[in-house]
């Protein structure tokens, strides 16, 4: 438990200043991102060797990255595009991060994302001709509720039988994929359409509020981040969620009901992931094809980890990932680097993060010692609660 070398505070230690606190939050994400970018550069250089006859260009990574950056933030359209890509990642990151706070690993964000979008499209199509001020909230609510149900089921199973949420949410992901395919090529399909696609959501679509395609969902995502932060840190509910996540036994001792909180947390987490799907459907695609379903739910896990589950840090983390997606196209055009490099970057970020207890030790070496970098430390850094000590 106690680090062997940390002496008990015999003298009063000054609380850390704002700058060092900011660094303690940002250090790992920043270092991890820089490392991934460097590794990405190395991969690009190596890939040049694989193309016969092509002159070797040391500047290729620079060309590629500058194209990536300008594709993400180079002009107003690019910035709006980044915001649009980031929106579902904010919702999804909040969903996964909120689960982490309660000690739950919601791998099912992807399934909840799909089911949320499904709920939104069903309600949206039904309300397509209803005035927008009524259609939009109802369709969004439908997406939220659908995602919530998809989160509730594994939460309930865990509370009553102890079924581990990692296993049950993965199962629920498969069910969601098949459910979507069945509905879109069956009852929801536009009759006589050659490909499986639903009707358009019409009036239920999010209005554009920014630039060419910056939809309402951007603002909602920002509000959601603030709301989740407020819920976690300013309400008794959030206190209970964090208490159960940090120490279930102590929470029970304190009169909280960990099982109830588990169910509530999974439901809320599912609802947030459902909103991620809703934001894509009502904001971007406006209808659903059987190929709907990106990797948003899984990218959200990386976003939550990068932000160490802090709801406010999730916003910049989502912007980083969204920006990479937005800029990837230009990178491919200008530097002939395939867009999949972005997947590689995101994956390496995730890998470095999982190794972050080790990284943290390196960063702090000499000044302060940290506990052993075992699985406990990894879990602690996932939850983001204990690691600040």
């Amino acid at each position, binding site marked *: 438990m106690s680090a062997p070398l*940390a002496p008990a*505070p015999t003298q009063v*230690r000054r609380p850390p200043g704002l700058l060092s606190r900011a660094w303690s939050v940002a250090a790992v994400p920043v270092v991890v991102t820089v490392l991934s970018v460097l590794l990405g550069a190395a991969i690009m250089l190596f890939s040049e060797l694989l193309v016969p006859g092509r002159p070797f260009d040391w500047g290729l990574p620079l060309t590629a990255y500058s194209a990536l950056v300008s594709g993400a933030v180079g002009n107003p359209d690019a910035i709006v595009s980044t915001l649009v890509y980031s929106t579902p990642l904010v919702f999804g990151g909040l969903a996964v991060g909120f689960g982490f706070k309660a000690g739950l690993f919601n791998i099912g964000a992807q399934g909840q994302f799909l089911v949320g979008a499904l709920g939104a499209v069903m309600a949206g199509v039904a309300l397509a001709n209803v005035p927008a001020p009524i259609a939009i909230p109802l369709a969004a609510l439908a997406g939220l509720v659908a995602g919530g149900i998809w989160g509730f089921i594994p939460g309930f199973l865990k509370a009553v039988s102890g079924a581990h949420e990692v296993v049950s949410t993965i199962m629920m992901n498969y069910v969601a994929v098949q459910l979507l395919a069945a509905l879109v090529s069956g009852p929801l399909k536009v009759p006589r359409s050659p490909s499986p696609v639903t009707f358009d959501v019409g009036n239920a679509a999010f209005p554009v509020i920014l630039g060419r395609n910056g939809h309402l969902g951007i603002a909602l995502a920002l509000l959601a981040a603030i709301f989740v932060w407020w819920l976690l840190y300013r309400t008794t509910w959030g206190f209970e969620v964090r208490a159960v996540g940090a120490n279930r036994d102590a929470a029970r001792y304190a009169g909280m009901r960990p099982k109830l909180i588990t169910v509530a947390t999974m439901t809320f987490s599912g609802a947030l992931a459902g909103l991620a799907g809703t934001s894509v459907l009502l904001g971007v695609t406006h209808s659903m094809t059987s190929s709907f379903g990106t990797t948003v739910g899984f990218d959200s896990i990386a976003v939550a980890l990068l932000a160490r589950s802090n709801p406010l840090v999730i916003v910049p983390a989502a912007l980083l990932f969204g920006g990479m997606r937005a800029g990837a196209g230009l990178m491919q055009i200008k530097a002939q680097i395939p867009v999949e490099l972005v997947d590689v970057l995101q994956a390496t970020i995730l890998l470095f993060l999982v190794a972050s207890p080790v990284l943290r030790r390196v960063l702090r070496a000499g000044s302060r010692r940290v506990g052993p970098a075992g699985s406990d430390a990894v879990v602690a850094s996932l939850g983001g609660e204990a690691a600040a000590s």
Partner: protein
Amino acid sequence: MTDQTGTSLAPALEMRGITKRYPGVVANDGISLEVHPGEIHALLGENGAGKTTLMNVLYGLARPDEGEILLDGRVVRIAGPSDAIARGINMVHQHFMLVPVLSVGDNILLGEETMANRVFLDRKEAHRRIVELGRRFGFEIDPEARVGSLSVGWQQRVEILKALYRNARILVLDEPTAVLTPQETEEIFAVLRRLAAEGHSIVFISHKLYEVLEIADRITVIRRGRVVGQRRPAETNEDDLAELMVGREVQLTVDRGTSHPGAPVLRVSGLQAKDDRGNPAVRGVDLEVRAGEILGIAGVAGNGQDELVESIVGLRRPSAGTVSLAGTDVTGHSPRDMNEAAVAYVPADRHRFGLITPFSLADNLVLTSYYRRPYARGVLRDGDAIQRDAASAIERFDIRTPSPTVTAGTLSGGNQQKTVVAREFDRELKLLVLDQPTRGLDVGSIEFIHRQVIAKRDAGTAVLLVSAELDEVLEMSDRIGVMYAGKIVAVVDGRTADKNEVGLLMATGGADRSGITPVEARP
């Protein structure tokens, strides 16, 4: 016992002017220490006084900012634990560094393999040496036995053997008796005396006064990173050492005063409960605690005390029997119901139940009342009220912390327990349930907590005190119930109880031919 201090021989170990600073803290401030061959040298100090840091410096785990280390009169620079071991310094940690699934022999060989050739271990030769070493120091050990199946006392012997196998000349034991029964402690002491007689030097770290007086040739007392005194057992006593250690006069035994028991508050009848594995742990307990009295429960740990307490406070559902509070049946009520019925509970394991260590001190102080006014209005928490009351509790309960916002995990054990006590004691109570309230604490904190308990009793609270420390039960209780195999086998008067008599009841349940008959409580 031979006392070789003061001979002309160079000390086996000398530490000169060791200073070690951590950000904001001077953990060691010019500490000097000499240990001669054949000497048992005790290092005494409260938690956080700097004992462990000093030993980490010796073991090469921490580099001193100033000072030097001499072995046999020569200055050495110790690069790390393996270097320390190579120089004959070995440490037996408080938490054993053993692999439970491996045999005794393999544990000892780990890191110091005796090879038959390049590839294979020479277990036969190794086992022969282990058995021989054990015999030399007075115990028979089976190198084939699995470490996980050994008692704690025997595991400690394996740790010591491990050090001896590495030809340790200087043996550092960090609070070796914290996990041992009195009987096992005596046995380990015998081993240590044999080791010293053979010329080994032993550094014995402890904060238990009577132990240090019994085993040590010399005692060095450390407080706040400095050496504040050195004594020989013959020229000191517990009060003197406690005062040195804490820096002021300490009352080692509480003045419990007189109690004025009132009406019964807690009544438990026919209570049965199962442990986490579903085996019966509490097997029909009847007890009664009245307002203004302390009922102590003595017993060897694991005789159902934890389950009894958890059944009373609502953390465990009893399988049979009833619990009533001031005449109301509260069997199976939730922890929150009990809390709201003015029942406070200090759990045995403060890390598991009592605190959420990553949370701030202030949040831990409201852990059971966070949802009530003034700490919340509806679901909105009132941060100002929480901080304000935290600041007040920190002052009144003397919790040493830089601020209410630091995480509870960074506090010392004593201050963590004071945090739990502050939270649980700081209101009107009907019943106070204490499970091992002073386990692992230093004398200063123990004194403080005992006083708070007496004050609560005098304010008319019924107190149920469970402790594996028999002395604590004897000193505090008005009546003592002895728990054995899930039952209260006897209730004796707290003021007239005889330590040996209660100890025997704890060990045997009173069922043997000891001539002791369980006594009924006298009002």
